C-alpha cells in the first residue's frame, strides 16, 4: 500500500496510523518513510506493507494493492506501483508544484481519468473539504484512511486506538471525526 502526497500534507502520519492498525491485527508490518529535506513541499511517498511475513519495506512496481493519493499529480506519479486489481483512493485536490506556478511545466489534464482507467477500482473524495467539516482541513489523511477502512477487515476499535496512539492528543477528536466522514462517504458511494 502506497501513500503519495506532498510534503506537509501528513502522509507520514497517516502511514503510521495504518501501520499501527495492521500491527494490532497481529500482522508482520514494515513501512518506509521520507524525512528531512524531501519534506519541504516536495513529492513524498510512504509505503506500508503487512501480511504473515514481510521482507522488503519497499514495494515493487506494479505490486501494490492500494494507492492512497493525497494529491492528484502525486497519485499519477506513483500510479505505476499499483498492481492489477489494485484500488486507488484519491483526494480530488490539485496542488501546483512551483515548476507549474512559474509556467515552466504544465499540470497534466485529466489526471483522474488516467487513474480511473488504470486502477481496477477508483474512489474519489474531497478529503480536504470533509476534513474541514470535521474541524481542520489538515486532517485530510484521516478521511482517506476512513475511505480505505471500508476495504479492509480491521475493526473500528483498532482504527480508533491507532489514531489515538499516533496523532497529537489535541488533534485526536478532529481526526476521528474526519476518519468517520471519509468512511461514511465511501460506504454510501460504493
Amino acid at each position, binding site marked *: 500500500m502506497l501513500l503519495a502526497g506532498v510534503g506537509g500534507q501528513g502522509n507520514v502520519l497517516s502511514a503510521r496510523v495504518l501501520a499501527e492498525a495492521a500491527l494490532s491485527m497481529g500482522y508482520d508490518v514494515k513501512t518506509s518513510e521520507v524525512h528531512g529535506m524531501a519534506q519541504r513541499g516536495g513529492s513524498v511517498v510512504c509505503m506500508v506493507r503487512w501480511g504473515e511475513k514481510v521482507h522488503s519495506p519497499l514495494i515493487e512496481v506494479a505490486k501494490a494493492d492500494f494507492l492512497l493519493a493525497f494529491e492528484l499529480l502525486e497519485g499519477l506519479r506513483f500510479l505505476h506501483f499499483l498492481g492489477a486489481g489494485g484500488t486507488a483512493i484519491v483526494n480530488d485536490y490539485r496542488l501546483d508544484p512551483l515548476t507549474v506556478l*512559474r509556467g515552466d511545466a504544465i499540470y*497534466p489534464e485529466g489526471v483522474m481519468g488516467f487513474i480511473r482507467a488504470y486502477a481496477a477500482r477508483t474512489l474519489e473524495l474531497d478529503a480536504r473539504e470533509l476534513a474541514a467539516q470535521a474541524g481542520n482541513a489538515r486532517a485530510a489523511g484521516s478521511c482517506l484512511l476512513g475511505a480505505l477502512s471500508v476495504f479492509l477487515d480491521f475493526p473500528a476499535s483498532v482504527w480508533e486506538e491507532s489514531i489515538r496512539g499516533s496523532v497529537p492528543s489535541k488533534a485526536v477528536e478532529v481526526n476521528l471525526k474526519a476518519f468517520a466522514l471519509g468512511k461514511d462517504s465511501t460506504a454510501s458511494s460504493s
Partner: protein
Amino acid sequence: MKRALLSGNEAVALGAWRAGVRVAAAYPGTPSTEILEELATYPDVYCEWSPNEKVALEVGIGSCLGGARSLVAMKHVGLNVAADPWMTLPYIGVNAGLVLAIADDPGMHSSQNEQDSRYYARMSKVPTLEPADSQECLEMVGAAMDISERYDTPVLLRVETRISHSRTVVEYREDRLRVDLPYEKDAVKRVMIPGHARLRHPVVISRLEDLEREAEAFAAGAMEMRSSRVGIVTSGVCYQYTREAFPEASILKLGFIYPLPEKTIREFASHFHRVYVVEELEPFLEEGIKAMGIDVVGKTRIPRDGELDPTLVAQSLAELIEMDTGVKHGGWTPPVPHASIPDESELPGRPPVMCPGCPHRGLFYALNRNKAVVSSDIGCYTLSVLPPLAGIDCQVCMGASVGMALGMERAFASSETNSDQAGKVVCVLGDSTFIHGGITGLIDMVYNNTISTIIILDNRTTAMTGFQDHPGTGRTLMGEDTYALDLVDLCRAVGVQSVRVVDPWELEEMEAVIREEMEAPRTSVIISRRACVLRERRTGIIYRVREEECTGCKRCLRLGCPALVMRDEKAFVQEDLCVGCSMCAQVCRPEALEEVRGGD
C-alpha cells in the same frame, strides 16, 4: 516481551538504552537524527547535540574511557568531520564500549554525496555490524557494545536510510544492563605520541585477526539454504530486497561485515557454481570476497550508484539466475507495463521548496539584486539554488562556504579574466552550520585580511533536519536552559569590525546593507535574523491581490513563494498558504498586494 513498530533509528536508541549506554552524542543529520532525539527521551542517559560530529565522537571517546558505555551517531558525511579522532581511536581502544552508529544515504534523499561508510571500517580496522531491520538494530547495538569491550575497540554500526526510516516489528524486554567500569590511568595505551603509537598499531592489526574469529561465530546460522543452484551473499536492507526478488535463492546474510567471516563464505560458496553479491553502493563485500580468491557476480550487474529496491535487484540478476535454474526470470514476476500512464519524466517535477514566508527567501532576493557571487553552505537555504531565485554559485559540505569564499575572492582579486567579480563574493551559511564548521573559516578571513562578506542565516534552529537545538538556541537536547551563544559577540571577538543584524523580511534594508558591506574593504558579517517560519508561523495577517491594480508583470513571482500563483494573467495569493511575510507586497511596483486580517 513487548511488541512495537519501531523505526531503525528508534530501535538503535532503545538498543543503546538497554545495553546500558550512559553517554550519547551526535550532530543532527538525515537519516541519523532521530537516534539521539529518541534516546534523549529515556531516563538516566546523558544525551547531547554536539557542535559537530568531531566533538560528538570526542565526547564519546572521553566517556567510554571514563567507564560509561557510549553511543555516537551521525550521518555518513559526519564521519569525514570526525575522521581525525576516529582513525586514532582504534589505537588507544576503549574502556567501556563505544559504538558509532553511522547512517549512509544511498540515493541521496537528503545528502550531498553517497559515499559508502564501510570503507571507513577497512581504513580504520574497526569491526562493523550491519542490521537488516529494526529488531537487528536493537540487538546489534548490544552485541556491538559487547564486542567493543571484549576486543578493546570501537565498533561501527552501519545503517542506511531504508533501515533508519523503515518501521518494522520489534520484540524486546524493558530491562537494562548496568555497566560502570573502573578508570585506571594507562598513558602508554592512551597517549598517542609516536613511540606509543608504534607499540599500538601492531595491536590493532592482530586484533583484526582475532575479530575474524568473532565474525565466524557471528555468522553461525547466517546461511539460509534453499535452492541448490542460486547462492547470494548480502547484508542489511539488501537482504530484504533479495528475499523479495528471489524467494527460492539460498542466502548468506552477513551481519558482521568487517572483517568478513572467510570460512563461512568459503563454505557457502562451495555449494554453488556461481555466487552473487547483492549490496548497495560500492563493491565492498565483493572486493573482500574476491580477495579470498572466490569469484562472485556483483557490480558488473548491479548498479554502483543510487539505491536498490526489490525490482532493481530482480532486474539486474534475473537473466543470469534464469541460466542457473532454467526457471523463467529466475522465478521473478516482472511488472506488466501499462501503456496508459504518462512516463514519470513527462510529469512536472515537485522538488522541495522553501516555505511561504521563509526568511531565507528575502535574503536571496536581496543577494540577487546585488549580483553577488554566492558561496553557500548546507541547509534549507541551499534550496534557493533552484529557479526562480537561482542564487547560489557553489556548495560542498558543512562550513566549507567560508573558506571557499576566501579562496574565490583571492582568485578574482589577482585575475585579469575575472576582475569584474572581485569584491562580489558573499558567503552564506546557517547559524547551526556556522557553529559546526564555519567559525574557523571566519578566523582565517580576519587573520588574512580578506575582503569578503559572510552572511549568517540565523533562524534560531537547525531547521532542515527537523528543528534541533544548537549552542545558539539556549536549550539543550535534554531540554535544559543554557547560555545562548551570541553570534554578534562571537564574530566581534574574532576580530570582525562590522557585524550587522538585519531582518530578512525587510527587503530594502537587507539589499542596502548587503551592498554597503560588499563595497566595504574588510571582512564583514551580516546576521540575517528571523526565526524559522515553521516555528513561528502566523503573523495574523495575509496578503491579497487587488486584481484591478495587478499588471501581471510577475515581479512578485521572482521570490519563488509557493503561496503566489498566476491566475488569468494576474497574480493570486493562495490564502491558506500565505503567512503574511509581506515580501511580495514590498516588491510589487503598482502596490497591488494589500494586507488583510486572516491566518490562524
